[in-house]
């Protein structure tokens, strides 16, 4: 009965083949489905009638039409596309927020800000132009804050999305593990579950879209999956991962690790998660840092200039800083270095004296406040709610104007040559700095004697006092410089001079008991009578030097006293180092100034102009050897303290997200410090700030703020362009590979229809065969019966 077996095997094969074709057609639109083909082989021969005759067809299995190499390549492109897609979305958002070329972006706002100062420089007292400066600065601040906010939101949403993505990855991993288990079970039973494998492969594809995974098939056909070495699926077990924010050197980065473990990994690539992590850890971080650096530079450049000047509102009766840390200045958000700042105080009688406040690494808001409060006229200075509030006594004013004082100071010399300390570099005596102005009427030497508990005692420790005696031997001050005194603290003496004793990192400053230093103060006396009084000395012009200098001007006269403009008389001017920078005739041929007309002007190379004038009763007399000093400042705040705490600042804030206008400026445009002169009518500071837009900055690697921003905007645009290009390339490759896959694994309904017809005909033929066999047997049976 082999014929029946042959016929039945053919019918069964045709039926199975039709089932497979039906399955293929049914899944022709199923994503991830791979076309299945029936595997056939001729059944083994059987000996019949002396011949070996085939016994029909055997069904040997079903083959998934899959090219593993191609599938791997598709997975790689897919994961790259997912990663790039995420990056492109965020970068396009930032590009739109920057608004360059689409609308008036930050570059326009930045240049408009500098232009507003430029325009104000032409008419510094114009209220409308001052309002325009405020308006342009507010626009700039809001645009910078807006972009910073977009970047911050993206950073936050990136982390949130990363966590959500990790949750999905964990879910998919569990499903893959479950399918692994089922497929393995079916394989043990001898079944090849093509559809389940397709389902599993589809899950792996989805996983790969989320994160680039490494897959490996074991001998049982299960797939093991890991992400950058972290196991995700091993056989039928799934291991979850989690996303966390790591803090390192001021930056937060997204990292993943196995749940509960600390095997953090930040260099995940590919897939949505890889894209999010690259965005957060590299791209957004870099953009954010650059934006902050730009804002910080704009703030510090503008404020460094602004703190020095005054506006049409003139000098101040009160100024309040921002709230800052109560710790040392080194903890402030904005950098404060060792140095000093100078406060000019104008007394009700018009006398102007400049005082120096020393700032070192250990200085605190309180110690600086205490130093300022000692200055005559600024006694009410205090700290309120963490803010330094400098307040003047009635009718006093103060400012931080650089340049030279209109009226020179009496000549004061310091002789500290006898101080030896411990005699070594690390036990040297402290540096003594003197500021203020001698208020005495006669020239005299002040002796400052130190009393200690023992020799080589450190400044600011134990019992240590400084006793100041005048030329007549009377004690005018006794001051504690032992425990409680901090290096750099100011000591206001009764003679109008302010001193500070300063140690440094190498040596805190040491005194021996009985150490002495001398302050020699000399005043100009002329001939000692009203009619032979010294001349009125005036200093004008804006100091153009690069460093702070104290110029000593010494008179050489042929006789005592001698009127200026007569006989032989010379004024010699020396800088802080003792170098003679000018020696000019002030004798015959020199014209003194009058109330109405400026006489001969001694113009120095550093921009300063000195004039000597009669004072109403005397044409101005000098004695031989008379001296006075001119203190000229290039930078009235070498420490950066004023800018860091926001005293007389234009901007507040420390970065792009916090940049804002100072409250005082918003309230009164008259506070915009356009001027560096005492009169407050010049435009020097406005011009300086306006020129900052094109000035190279060391903070920005030698670029100006406007150029740095252009570079940032172009950088973001280039990244968008580059990511888009890479995405398009990956998409092209993906489409090409997908086309190849479709040829191999895709279901073509036409093909299937043709094959269906073939198997249908086969089925019909086999049926006919069986019918023929049956009829033959019937005929045979008829013959027998």
């Amino acid at each position, binding site marked *: 009965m082999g014929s029946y077996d042959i016929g039945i095997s053919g019918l069964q094969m045709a039926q199975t083949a039709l089932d497979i074709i039906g399955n293929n057609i049914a899944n022709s639109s199923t994503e991830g489905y791979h076309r299945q083909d029936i595997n056939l082989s001729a059944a083994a021969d059987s000996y019949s009638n002396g011949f070996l005759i085939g016994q029909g067809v055997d069904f040997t299995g079903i083959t998934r039409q899959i090219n593993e190499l191609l599938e791997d390549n598709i997975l790689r492109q897919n994961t790259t596309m997912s990663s790039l897609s995420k990056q492109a979305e965020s970068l396009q958002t930032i590009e739109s927020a920057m608004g*360059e070329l689409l609308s008036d972006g930050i*570059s326009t706002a930045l240049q408009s800000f500098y*232009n507003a100062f430029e325009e104000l420089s032409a008419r510094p007292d114009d209220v409308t132009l001052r309002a325009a400066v405020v308006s342009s600065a507010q626009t700039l601040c809001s645009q910078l804050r807006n972009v910073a906010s977009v970047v911050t939101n993206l950073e936050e949403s990136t982390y949130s999305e990363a966590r959500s993505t990790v949750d999905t990855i964990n879910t998919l991993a569990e499903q893959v593990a479950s399918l692994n288990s089922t497929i393995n079970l079916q394989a043990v039973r001898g079944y090849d579950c093509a559809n389940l494998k397709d389902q599993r492969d589809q899950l792996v594809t989805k996983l790969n879209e989320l994160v680039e995974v490494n897959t490996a098939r074991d001998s049982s056909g299960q797939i093991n999956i890991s992400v950058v070495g972290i196991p995700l699926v091993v056989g039928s077990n799934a291991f979850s991962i989690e996303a966390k924010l790591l803090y390192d050197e001021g930056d937060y980065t997204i990292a993943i690790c196995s749940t509960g473990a600390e095997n953090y990994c930040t260099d995940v690539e590919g897939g949505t998660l890889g894209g999010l992590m690259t965005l957060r850890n590299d791209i957004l971080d870099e953009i954010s840092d650059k934006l902050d650096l730009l804002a910080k530079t704009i703030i510090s450049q503008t404020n460094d200039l602004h703190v020095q000047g005054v506006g049409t509102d003139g000098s101040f009766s009160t100024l309040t800083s921002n709230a800052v840390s109560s710790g040392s200045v080194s903890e402030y958000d904005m950098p404060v270095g060792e140095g000093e700042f100078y406060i000019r105080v104008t007394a009700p009688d018009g006398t102007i004296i400049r005082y120096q406040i020393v700032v070192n690494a250990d200085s605190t808001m309180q110690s600086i406040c205490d130093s300022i409060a000692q200055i005559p006229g600024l006694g009410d200075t205090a700290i309120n709610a963490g803010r330094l509030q400098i307040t003047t006594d009635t009718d006093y004013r103060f400012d931080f104007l650089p340049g030279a004082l209109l009226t020179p100071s009496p000549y004061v010399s310091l002789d500290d040559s006898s101080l030896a300390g411990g005699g070594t570099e690390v036990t040297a005596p402290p540096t003594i700095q003197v500021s203020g102005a001698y208020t005495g009427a006669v020239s005299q030497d002040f002796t400052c004697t130190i009393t200690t508990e023992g020799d080589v005692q450190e400044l600011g420790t134990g019992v240590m006092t400084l006793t100041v005696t005048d030329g007549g031997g009377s004690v005018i001050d006794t001051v504690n410089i032992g425990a409680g005194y901090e290096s750099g603290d100011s000591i206001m003496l009764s003679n109008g001079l302010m001193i500070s004793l300063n140690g440094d990192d190498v040596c805190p400053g040491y005194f021996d008991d009985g150490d002495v230093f001398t302050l020699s103060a000399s005043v100009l006396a002329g001939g000692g009578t009203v009619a032979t009084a010294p001349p009125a000395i005036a200093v004008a012009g804006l100091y153009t030097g690069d460093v702070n200098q104290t110029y000593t001007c010494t008179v050489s006269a042929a006789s005592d006293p001698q009127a200026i403009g007569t006989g032989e008389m010379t004024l010699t001017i020396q800088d802080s180092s003792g170098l003679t920078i000018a020696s000019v005739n002030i004798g015959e041929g020199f014209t003194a100034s009058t109330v109405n007309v400026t006489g001969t002007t001694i113009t120095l190379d550093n921009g300063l102009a000195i004039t000597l004038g009669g004072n*109403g009763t005397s044409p101005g007399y000098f004695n031989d050897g008379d001296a006075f000093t001119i203190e000229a400042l290039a930078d009235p705040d070498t420490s950066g303290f004023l800018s860091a705490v926001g005293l007389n600042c234009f901007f507040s804030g420390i970065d792009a997200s916090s940049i804002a206008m100072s409250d005082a400026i918003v309230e009164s445009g008259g506070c915009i410090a356009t001027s560096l002169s005492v009169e407050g009518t010049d435009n020097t500071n406005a011009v300086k700030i306006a020129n900052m837009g094109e000035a190279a900055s060391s903070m920005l690697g030698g670029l100006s703020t406007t150029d740095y921003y252009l570079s940032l905007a172009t950088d973001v645009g280039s990244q968008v362009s580059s990511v888009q290009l890479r995405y398009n390339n990956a998409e092209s490759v993906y489409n090409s590979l997908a086309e190849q896959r479709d040829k191999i694994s895709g279901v073509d309904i036409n093909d299937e229809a043709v094959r269906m017809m073939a198997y249908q005909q086969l089925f019909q033929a086999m049926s006919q065969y069986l019918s023929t066999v049956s009829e033959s047997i019937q005929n045979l049976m008829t013959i027998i019966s």
Partner: protein
Amino acid sequence: MCQKIGHTLSVQSTTLAQLQEKAATGQEVNRVSDDPSSANRILSLLKNKQILTQYTKNISGLTSVLELSSSVLQSMTSQVSDARADIESLINGTVSDSTRTSLADGLDDVIETLVSLANTQQSGQSLFGGSNSSTAPYRIEYNSDGDISRVVYQGGTQENMVDVADGVSISALLSGPSLFTDDDPQTPVFYGSTGAAVGAGSSTVRGNVSLQVQGSVGNWQLSIDGGANWVSSNGTEANLAVVNSETGETLYVDTANIIQAGTEPVSVPGTYDIFNALINAKDLLKNAQNIPDTQLNNILNDTVRGLEGADEVLTRSFSIVGGKLQILSSLGESIEQIQTCTEDNIGQLQDADVSQLAIDLSQYEVLYQMSLAVAQKMFSMSFLDFMS
């Protein structure tokens, strides 16, 4: 096949959207990512354009101020010239006291007019106040009789420089003294008969002053401020400083040859400003000190020469202002050219080629339609149609 068709349609749709955006904005580069390299150049050029626009505004503002200054200086020159002509005609002829007084009164009006002109403001800024332009730069002071005693400058001595080009700055609000004052002081001239003579020191008095000498031989007292501050002399000093207590001006006097008390008119050539020269002339015309006619005419002659000096200073100022206007005009033209060039460059980089755009749009539209048609055809054909 579906994926390929979908991708092709997506690419064409994106291209059409990009072309539509370019057509709508007329710009080839609408965002930096469209063409980062060109965008960088465009942004840089736009920044330069902003800077140039600001320079143009500055030049326009300064030009406006200087043109008004020029006009005011012309009016002042005319006033001074007329006054000088009146005084000259008076010196050359014989006139009555009433005519002199009348002319002196007329000079009061001229001085007030000149001060008013010197205090001219534009948009709240004084033209001749230097850096201190918010207040009137010149103030008239009157004596107890209500006569003009002097004109005081209270503006700024510095001038505010304004940037008008890269590295070029110009001031428009000029400092009055630099325009209205002759600053070429010469040796003081003593006209009187007291015997006082000029000392060796560098005197700071300006214009005309009256040196009063009183006392007797060996015990003289000298004053140049109407007796407010007397300086004692024993008649031997070759270089005695006599100080004006009000102004601080000093006149160095050789007292060795003083022979009698009296008033010694002194004038200092090369120190007149237009206001005080006219005040001196007016005082001389009123002759309150009863200076003899001969002396008076001599001093008036010197005063007229002082006025000529002041007039020359005014003329010089006129040319200074004119020179600045010329520089600004020239700079303005250059900047305008650079601006045009910059705008051209921006246009070349940023503007879309409209005709090319139209062709591209048309081409992609056809392609898109063709793709749709092909897709429709491909989806409609099937072997199933032939199965029965």
